[in-house]
């Protein structure tokens, strides 16, 4: 057995799970929540994480719900990525989230890996945080003091760290349905298909009066969290959808990045280059989709 020994509890209600978290926090026990386990299990196997207790959410009813509610798509934290990928609601009404889901790891991982788990795990190379920033997603957390809704911009703090308190459980994520006429794109570069991205970019925008409007861009895999590319957004908004403009906006976005991460697979300089190239390609594709959607 590779992981260090731990205890395991699988509470059957959310209230019970929240009470357990509060109790073990008071007692100073190192607790980790397990959802699909597809990121946590490798960390346990390598003993990067050595919790004393795992609390499994699998028995809690309702966390696997997926529905549309008042113009928003609501995804329960325990919905598997495979379910999100197979959902006609997500495919038809929020294609950017759908495309991002298909970029996550491999099918066999998406079969078990949960949507909520990826948000709570907050890997800097994960697609979801960037999509969350672009779409202004919201995370619902439940703790012993009740529930709160956290906007994406306040949710991701740094590497593998969110603003969830140790006693809170992420129960659902919400995103608006994509308005008609919105163009979108998500692209990433990874060494092999299914690997974590070395860098990636997600975009939404609209066209109106011959110019680009309401552009939202974010990058992942480059900084400790996903980052909005506001310099690129500003360079595009109000400008005609033209390849020269895309190149200028992409360069502005890449140049404004804080020093990107560096590793043996990709230097900081290379990651910055990837953001520029991917942003340029994303903008072209998003504009094309916006044009098609409006036509």
């Amino acid at each position: 057995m590779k992981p260090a020994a731990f205890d395991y509890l699988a509470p059957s209600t959310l209230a019970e799970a929240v009470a357990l978290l509060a109790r073990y926090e008071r007692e100073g026990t190192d607790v980790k929540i397990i959802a699909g386990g597809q990121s946590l299990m490798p960390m346990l196997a390598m003993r990067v994480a050595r919790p004393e207790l795992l609390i499994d959410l699998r028995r809690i009813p309702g966390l696997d719900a997926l529905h549309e509610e008042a113009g928003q798509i609501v995804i329960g934290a325990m919905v598997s990525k495979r379910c999100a990928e197979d959902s006609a609601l997500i495919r038809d009404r929020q294609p950017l989230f759908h495309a991002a889901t298909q970029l996550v790891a491999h099918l066999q991982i998406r079969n078990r890996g949960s949507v909520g788990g990826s948000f709570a795990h907050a890997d800097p190379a994960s697609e979801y945080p960037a999509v969350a920033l672009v779409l202004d997603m919201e995370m619902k957390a439940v703790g012993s003091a009740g529930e709160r809704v956290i906007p994406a911009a306040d949710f991701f703090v740094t590497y593998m760290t969110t603003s969830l308190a140790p006693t809170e459980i992420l129960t659902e994520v919400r995103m608006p349905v994509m308005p008609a006429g919105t163009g979108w794109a998500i692209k990433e570069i990874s060494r092999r298909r299914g690997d974590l991205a070395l860098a990636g970019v997600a975009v939404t925008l609209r066209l109106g009066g011959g110019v680009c409007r309401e552009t939202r861009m974010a990058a992942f895999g480059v900084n400790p969290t996903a980052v909005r590319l506001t310099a690129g957004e500003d360079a595009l908004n109000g400008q005609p959808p033209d390849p020269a403009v895309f190149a200028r906006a992409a360069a502005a976005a890449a140049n404004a990045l804080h020093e990107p991460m560096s590793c043996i697979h990709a230097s900081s300089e290379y990651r910055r280059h990837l953001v520029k190239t991917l942003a340029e390609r994303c903008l072209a594709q998003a504009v094309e989709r916006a044009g098609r959607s409006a036509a």
Partner: protein
Amino acid sequence: MSTTQRIRVTVNGEAHEREVEPRLTLSEFLRHELRLGGTHVGCEHGICGACNVMIDGRVARSCLTLAVQVDGAQVTTVEGLRDRETGALHPIQQAFIDAHGLQCGFCTPGFLMSTLELLRDNPAPSDDQIRHALGGNLCRCTGYQSILAAVRLAAARLQPH
């Protein structure tokens, strides 16, 4: 620390009840507790796909699943592919033999389980769809071309006539 847990799991149609440590992975449970050695363990952290098994109808890594998490679940391993009455190999297994979809065979159980789910969900996949479905399985012998051929052959043989 670490209190053992009692779990009930149905594996290849047979119910099992065991007392397990929480840190025991499903792959270890299958191999060491149930003595089902067909599920191979390569990387033990979710990269290679050799340990893929079917859990409640979806293929997943048994090394990235704890035995305690499958309490109450239905698991199918490579041992469950063979026809229970006649003992004949599953058409996917036969196609891997006939199309030389394996050399050393270490990765094969994982490929077979991924293929099982693929052809169940999509009986006539394109080459691109096959590559996509098997992208999470590593093989260091074949160069993959004969595996693709095996999956195509299995798909053709499984087509209703």
